[in-house]
């Protein structure tokens, strides 16, 4: 086995896995933005919260699988509550109010997390089944990365099926492209909003659990990964799922190969990529809406 090829493959797997996690996080952001026209600045905080919940569930039950089930659901419920009881109330005051509200919520969550769990980074063990490598075609693949890619693909496919094959999905897509029209069709938009918000935060939660064993759990998670997901949304174009997927993968790969070749400056690569795209297309690659 040629070590150079092995290195490329390993980095590629890391990049792909990170890209898929970014997609899980970014797709929620972009869906919520597309539907409601607001950027949920608390989105990454939900992601971090879910990583902590994952740590806590494992600490109580010892089961990663249970954590993977429970943490995102709890996160999603908190997201729904935020939409229902806070965001909806301030909708009338315009976008700036909504944005600042999500900033407030993210501060409260971030600080609460520090109160409950402290600021040290906490380790999360992956179950034995997912440890180690599989060998195929003379190359080694880390199982956990494969698992993340697989899990994200399943979520992506289910999401696509719902969006493109069900009536609900049709309503959501219509709402993303034209919220007024859906209102005119007599559909309960607030309910759909709440649902999308819930699903979006749930996906952020899944991403949070997925990242926990890789990066460990610490308050800075929201900043570190959140900013990357944010770049994905901006570059992909607000409201564009396809754009989010494509750019998430590009960013994941940029990140992992960047670490290999320019190590220190790897995070800068993503920003440069973003700057180049935005200079030519201020609304992102696939974005049209203002």
């Amino acid at each position, binding site marked *: 086995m040629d070590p150079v090829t092995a290195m490329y493959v390993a980095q590629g797997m890391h990049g792909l896995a990170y890209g898929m996690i970014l997609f899980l996080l970014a797709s929620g952001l972009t869906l919520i933005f597309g539907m409601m026209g607001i950027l949920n600045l608390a989105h990454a905080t939900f992601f971090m919260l879910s990583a902590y919940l994952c740590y806590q569930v494992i600490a109580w039950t010892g089961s990663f699988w249970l954590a993977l089930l429970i943490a995102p659901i709890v996160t999603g419920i908190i997201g729904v509550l935020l939409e229902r009881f806070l965001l909806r109330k*301030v909708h009338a005051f315009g976008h700036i109010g909504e944005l600042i509200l999500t900033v407030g919520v993210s501060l409260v969550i971030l600080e609460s997390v520090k109160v409950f769990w402290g600021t040290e980074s906490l380790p999360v063990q992956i179950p034995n089944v997912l440890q180690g490598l599989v060998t195929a075609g003379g190359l080694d693949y880390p199982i956990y990365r494969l698992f993340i890619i697989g899990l994200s693909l399943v979520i992506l496919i289910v999401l696509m099926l719902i969006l493109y094959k069900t009536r609900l999905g049709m309503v959501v897509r219509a709402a993303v492209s034209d919220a007024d029209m859906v209102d005119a069709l007599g559909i309960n938009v607030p309910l759909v909003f709440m649902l999308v918000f819930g699903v979006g935060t749930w996906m952020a939660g899944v991403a949070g659990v997925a990242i926990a064993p890789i990066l460990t759990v610490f308050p800075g998670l929201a900043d570190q990964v959140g*900013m990357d997901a944010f770049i994905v949304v*901006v570059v992909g174009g607000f409201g564009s799922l396809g754009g989010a997927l494509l750019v998430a993968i590009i960013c994941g790969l940029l990140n992992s190969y960047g670490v290999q070749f320019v190590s220190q*400056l790897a*995070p800068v690569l993503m*920003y440069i990529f973003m700057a180049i795209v*935005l200079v030519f297309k201020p609304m992102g690659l696939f974005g049209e809406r203002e």
Partner: protein
Amino acid sequence: MMNKMLKWILWLAGFVFLILYPKLFGIYYSNVFVTFAIFALYATSYNLLLGYTGLLSFGHAMFFGTGAYGTALALTHISGFPLIPALLAGALAAAILALILCPIMVRVGGTAFAMLHLAFGGLMYVLALKLRHITGGEDGIGGFDIPPFSIPGIVSFDMTDPLQFFYFAMVVLIGSIWILWFFTKTPFGQIMIAVRDNAKRVDYLGFRVPQTKAVIYVFSGAFCGVAGAVYALFQNLISAEDGFHVMTSFAPIMLTMVGGIGSFFGPIFGSAIFGILEELTTRYTERVELVFGLVLIFVIMFAPMGFVGTVKMIKEKWFTRQGV
């Protein structure tokens, strides 16, 4: 005539208060006051965009940080660099950054404007962290010599003395806020307000909207830079965290929202409120930002016009009741 007298008396009272402040409250509270004034200037310059032109930016920390790093770098690398040029170096660095960005920024509005700033602000943060040999990474740049404020042959003030720095900072910060206030009263300031109200009609009155926005943008950036420069001098340290972090970008938005978005003095009240809040909460808890978050949620939910707006509303209610 009475009004003019009253105005002068108020000015004089404010002036005397500031002179006596360090004597009355001591050095600790003088430093608290300097911090408040720095953020007041930062938020006021920011509000030139948000409140007056209607542009929401999520990345103004890049101007604050660039101003701070500009001054810090100038003082670190050029020995014997005087105080005022160092301050101007910071402001100039921020203005140049704004000048570079404004061709992109004036083309977009609304959400795209906000997001582009968040993105470029993030870029500056990462650069400040990663270009270690220039910026010092996480540690930042600190310990540079603070030159005295001197007019050669006449007078020299030692800026490492907190009391003398207090007076210097007040002159710079309040002077800057006054310039911004004056700016809103000039013909150009009128055009600026008109752009917020109805950019299309401004075009049809023979004023060029993108150029107007660009000038305001650079102006706002430069004065955020002044705030950053004073901050660097005050702390004798600037780090990526303080200078460029996303929370530094959100700070002026929070101050403006809490103080009152539609008014020139709103952001100043906002800084005062947050300054007092921080003073009070740090006595009991380390989680100051938890309190900030709760206050923010409370204000958005129940007093979306902020302090100034709410006071105005109460005043109007009071007067109508008196009238009846």
